[in-house]
C-alpha cells in the first residue's frame, strides 16, 4: 500500500485544526450471545457456537440477554451517561453474507445510555473531557475468511468462508460527540481515549478488551478545519485499527494526509478508510455518505428494554473507581513526583505497581523495578513471548534486598533468572547460592589475603589515604563472586588495615 503524500505534522497543525470523533465497539464477555442461548466463546471450532437464531433460520426469533443489558447499563453509568427509562431495538437492513438475517439488530433512536463524559489524561498530563453522545447495544456479525485472492478482501477472492460463532456476540457501541480543541495532542488523545475505555471495561469486568482479538474496536473519525474558518471539514472514518499504538498513528496519518490534499487544493472524500499496520498508512474503503440507507425501523420481535430503577442504582453502587479518580488517589498515596507518576502511567504500569505495593514492597521500590530493570528486560525480549514476572515476585525480590540477602546487583541477577522462568526469587537465591555472604569470618579471610597481596595499598590506607581501599574492595568482591555487601567489605577492610 503506497503511502499518500503527507504534510509535515507541525505544518498541518499550523494550517488546520483537527476535529475528532470515535466509535468504539466493545464485545461483552457474557456467557451467551446477545439474542440467543449460544455460548459466547472466542476461538471455538467454526460454526459450533450457534443456534437457529444465530443463523437467522426461518422462524427463529431473538430474545434479549439480560446479562448483556446489565453490562451495558454498568458501562453507560461508568461513562457518566443517563440510562434510558426505556430503550428499544431497531433493525439495520443491509445485505452482507456475514450478517445471517441480512439485518443487524441494533439500537437506533432509543439507545440505552446517552449524554456521558469521560476524563482522558494525556501523557503530557493534559486532561481532556470527551463527551459521549450515546452507548447502545447491538449484535456482532459473523466472520468472513476470503480465500484465493491476493488481498484477503472479498473482491478478487475465489470463495469465502463464513463462521457464525461471532454472529450475535453482544456489543456496546460508544459514540463520542465531536471533539474539538485537542490540537497538537489529537493523536495522543485518540490513543488515550481508547485506553481509557479499555481501562473502564476491564475494571467493570465486562469485556476481555483485547484489541488484537477484536474485543475492542475503534473507528476514528478525523476531519480538518482550516484555521480561521468555522466550517467543519469532510471527515473520514478509519477502521481496522487494532492496537492502541495504531489508533495514534492512524489519526496522525489522516491529519497529515488530509492536510496535504487540502493544501494542494483537493477535496476530502467522505469514506471509510482501512488502516494498514504494516505500511502505517490508510487506504480508501467504500464511500460513506450520510445518505447510506439502512431502512431502520423498530424491531418488532423485541419489546423495549425497561430496566428496574432499583437495578440501575444497584449497578451504580457497584461501579469501580473511575480511572482518573484512581490515578489521583494512587499518586497521592504513593507520594510520587509528577514526573515519576507520569512515567508510570505512560508505561501502563499502574496495576502492576498497585499489586506490587499490595504484596508488601514500598511504592518507590516497586516503581524502580517496573520502570527500570523489568522494562529493560521486556524491551530486550520484544518480539519473543515477552517476559513473565508477577508483582508478587517483584515484592519478594525487594524483600530479599531489604533484609540484606541480596545486593542490588545480585537482585538484578535474580530477576533475570525469574524472567527466564527459573523459579521465584527465593528459590533462585537458594538453588543458585546467590545470597550475600554475611559471614564476617569468610570476608576477613578474603580481605587479609587481598591486603597481603597488595602491601603498597595497605601502607597507603594506614597513611590515611582511605580512597586507596577501593582496589582491595574490588579484589575481595571479585573473590566473593559479587556475593558480598560492598559497604560491609569496606568497613572490614578499614578495620583490618588498622589491625595489621
Amino acid at each position, binding site marked *: 500500500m503506497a503511502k499518500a503524500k503527507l504534510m509535515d505534522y507541525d505544518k498541518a497543525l499550523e494550517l488546520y485544526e483537527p476535529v475528532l470523533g470515535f466509535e468504539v465497539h466493545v464485545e461483552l464477555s457474557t456467557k451467551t450471545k446477545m439474542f440467543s442461548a449460544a455460548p459466547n466463546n472466542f476461538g471455538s471450532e467454526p460454526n459450533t457456537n450457534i443456534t437457529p437464531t444465530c443463523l437467522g433460520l426461518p422462524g*427463529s426469533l431473538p430474545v434479549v440477554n439480560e446479562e448483556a443489558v446489565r453490562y451495558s447499563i454498568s458501562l453507560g453509568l461508568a461513562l457518566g451517561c443517563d440510562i434510558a427509562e426505556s430503550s428499544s431495538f431497531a433493525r439495520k437492513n443491509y445485505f452482507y453474507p456475514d450478517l445471517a438475517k441480512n439485518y443487524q439488530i441494533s439500537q437506533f433512536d432509543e439507545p440505552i445510555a446517552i449524554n456521558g463524559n469521560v476524563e482522558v489524561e494525556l501523557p503530557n498530563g493534559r486532561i481532556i473531557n470527551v463527551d459521549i453522545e450515546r452507548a447502545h447495544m447491538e449484535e456482532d456479525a459473523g466472520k468472513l475468511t476470503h480465500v484465493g485472492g491476493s488481498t484477503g478482501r472479498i473482491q478478487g477472492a475465489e470463495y469465502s468462508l463464513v463462521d457464525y460463532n461471532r454472529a450475535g456476540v453482544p456489543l456496546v457501541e460508544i459514540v463520542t460527540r465531536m471533539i474539538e480543541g485537542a490540537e497538537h495532542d489529537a493523536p495522543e488523545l485518540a490513543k488515550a481515549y481508547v485506553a481509557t475505555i479499555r481501562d473502564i471495561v476491564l475494571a467493570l469486568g465486562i469485556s476481555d478488551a483485547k484489541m488484537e482479538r477484536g474485543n475492542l474496536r475503534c473507528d476514528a473519525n478525523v476531519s480538518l478545519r482550516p484555521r480561521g474558518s468555522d466550517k467543519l471539514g469532510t471527515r473520514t472514518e478509519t477502521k481496522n485499527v487494532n492496537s492502541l499504538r495504531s489508533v495514534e498513528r492512524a489519526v496522525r496519518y489522516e491529519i497529515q494526509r488530509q492536510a496535504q490534499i487540502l493544501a494542494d487544493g483537493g477535496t476530502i472524500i467522505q469514506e471509510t478508510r482501512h488502516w494498514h499496520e504494516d505500511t502505517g498508512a490508510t487506504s480508501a474503503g467504500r464511500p460513506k455518505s450520510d445518505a447510506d440507507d439502512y*431502512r431502520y425501523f423498530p424491531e418488532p420481535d423485541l419489546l423495549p428494554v425497561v430496566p428496574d430503577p432499583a437495578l440501575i442504582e444497584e449497578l451504580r453502587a457497584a461501579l469501580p473507581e473511575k480511572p482518573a479518580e484512581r490515578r489521583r488517589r494512587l499518586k497521592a498515596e504513593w507520594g510520587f513526583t509528577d514526573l515519576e507518576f507520569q512515567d508510570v502511567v505512560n508505561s501502563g504500569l499502574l496495576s502492576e505497581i498497585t499489586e506490587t505495593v499490595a504484596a508488601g514492597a514500598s511504592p518507590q521500590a516497586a516503581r524502580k523495578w517496573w520502570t527500570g530493570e523489568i522494562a529493560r528486560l521486556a524491551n530486550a525480549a520484544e518480539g519473543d513471548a515477552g517476559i513473565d514476572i508477577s508483582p508478587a515476585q517483584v515484592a519478594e525480590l525487594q524483600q530479599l534486598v531489604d533484609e540484606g540477602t541480596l545486593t542490588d546487583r545480585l537482585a538484578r541477577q535474580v530477576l533475570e533468572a525469574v524472567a527466564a522462568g527459573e523459579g521465584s526469587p527465593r528459590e533462585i537465591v537458594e538453588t543458585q547460592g546467590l545470597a550475600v555472604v554475611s559471614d564476617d569470618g569468610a570476608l576477613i579471610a578474603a580481605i587479609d589475603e587481598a591486603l597481603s597481596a597488595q602491601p603498597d595499598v595497605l601502607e597507603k590506607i594506614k597513611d590515611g589515604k582511605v580512597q586507596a581501599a577501593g582496589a582491595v574492595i574490588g579484589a575481595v568482591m571479585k573473590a566473593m563472586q559479587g556475593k558480598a555487601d560492598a559497604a560491609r567489605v569496606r568497613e572490614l577492610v578499614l578495620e583490618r588495615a588498622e589491625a595489621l
Partner: protein
Amino acid sequence: MSDLIHKTAAELADMLAAGTTTSVEITQAHLDRIAAVDGDLNAFLHVNAAVSLEAAKQSDARRAAGAPLSPLDGVPIAIKDVLVTTDMPSTSGSKILEGWMSPYDATVVTKVREAGLVPLGKTNMDEFAMGSSTEHSAFGPTRNPWDLDRIPGGSGGGSAAAVAAFEAPLALGSDTGGSIRQPAHITGTVGVKPTYGGVSRYGAIALASSFDQIGPVTRTVMDSALLHDVIKGHDVHDSTSLKDEWPSFADAVKNADVKGLKIGVIEQLDGEGFQPGVLSRFHEALELLKANGAEIVNVSLPSLAHAVAAYYLILPAEASSNLAKFDSVRFGLRVQPEGGGTVEQVMSATREAGFGAEVKRRIILGTYALSAGYYDAYYGSAQKVRTLVQRDFADAFSKVDVLASPTAPTTAWKLGDQLDDPVAMWRGDIATIPANMAGIPGISVPAGLADEDGLPVGIQFLAPAREDARLYNVGGALEALLEQQWGHTLLSQAPELKGGQR
C-alpha cells in the same frame, strides 16, 4: 370411506377415551381420505403416511398403558407449511425453501406433539402467507371443497380446505391479516386468531412479525377451543409472547351463554362493498343472538377507513426485512448465475428465481416504504393509523363486550378472477385486518350460505386483547343456535368429494 373422518376432534377424543377406536384407525382413515381427494384439492404440500402412522401407533401404546398425554392424544392434525418441522419439509409455499428441512420444531408443533396429536402433513398456502386465495403458492393453488373452480381463501387455504374436506379434524394456521379467519369464512369452517402474544411465534416463518399470530382451524368452535388450549401460553423463545395465565377455552364453549352479552356491530363493516348474501346471513345471525338475550348496538370505528392502506405499508415493510434472510448463503435455493458470480449476483439470481410475483411486489413496496425520505410519509403515517385503530377499538370495547362483522366482503371467487388486480384482493381483507393492527383476538364462525351463490359465509367476532374466552362464548353459542335452527352442520351441505375430478 370410514365415518371416522366426519367426527369432530372432541368426538374422536371421546371415542379414543372409550376405547371404541384407535389412533391408527383414525389416522389411516384420514390418510385414505387425503389419498382419495387431495389430488383435486391440493390442500397438502407434504404427507408422509409412515411417519403419521408411527406417531399414531405410539399414541395407542400410551393409551393402552393408561398414560395418554392429553385428551387429544391420538387425534390427527394438519400443519400449515409456515410452521417449521423437523420431520417434514417446511417451505412456506415458496420455491426458495423447496425441500428445506428445519433442524428445530416450531414451539406450537412441539406443543401439539407433546399433547400426543398426530401430524398428518403440511398444508398449502400463499407464498410466505402473502395472499387471500392460496393462488400465490409456488406449488399450485388449493381448491375450494365447495366448488373446485373456486379459491379456498388464503393464505391458509390449505388448512381450511383440509378441514372442510374432512382430510383432517384439526389444523394449525397463521393469521397476519386474516389468513385463518377469511379461509374459515370461505370454506364454512371455524378459525381463531388469538390475542397477539397468546401463542408462540417461534418457528413460524415470519411474514409481518407485529401482526403474525398462530391459531386453530377446525370445523367446530369446541375443537378450536381444545386446540387453542394446547398451543396457548408463554414461550421463552418468543419475547412477544404473553406471560398471562389463560382460562380454559373449552370451558368457555361448554358454558356458552349470550344472555346479557353486549355485541357491537361495526358500522364501517356493514353495508357498502359487502355482498348481499353475506350481509343477510350476518344480520340473521345477529337477530338470533338477540332473540337469545344478547344486546345488539351499533358502534363506529372511523379509523378503519385507512386500515387497509396502513396495513399494506406496515406489512410489506416488515416483510421486506423478514425475507432478507432468504439469500442462498445458509439454506434453501441457490441459483448460480451463468459463469459463476459474486455473492451479490448469486443472492440476486436466487431471489429472482425463488420468489413469486406477489412476494416481490411486497418486498419492493416495503423497501420503498422504509427508505430514507419516504419513511415518515409511508411507514410513519401507517403506524399513526395503527395507533388510531387501537384507540378506536379501546373506545368501542369500553361500550360493548364483543364486536361483530362479516368476516369478509364476499364469498369464494373463481380461481384467477382477482389475480390481475392485487389491490382488489387486498381490499377484501378490510374486515380481518383491524384485529391484527390492534393485536386483539378474532373468530370466524359459519353463518350459513349466501343466497346468490350457495357458498359459505362466516361471521366474525372480535374481543379485547386477552379476552379470547369471550370469542369462544359467543362463537360456541351462535354455532349451537344455528345448528339447532338448521338441523345439521353447515359442512354437511357441501357437495360430496369423489376424487379424481381433476
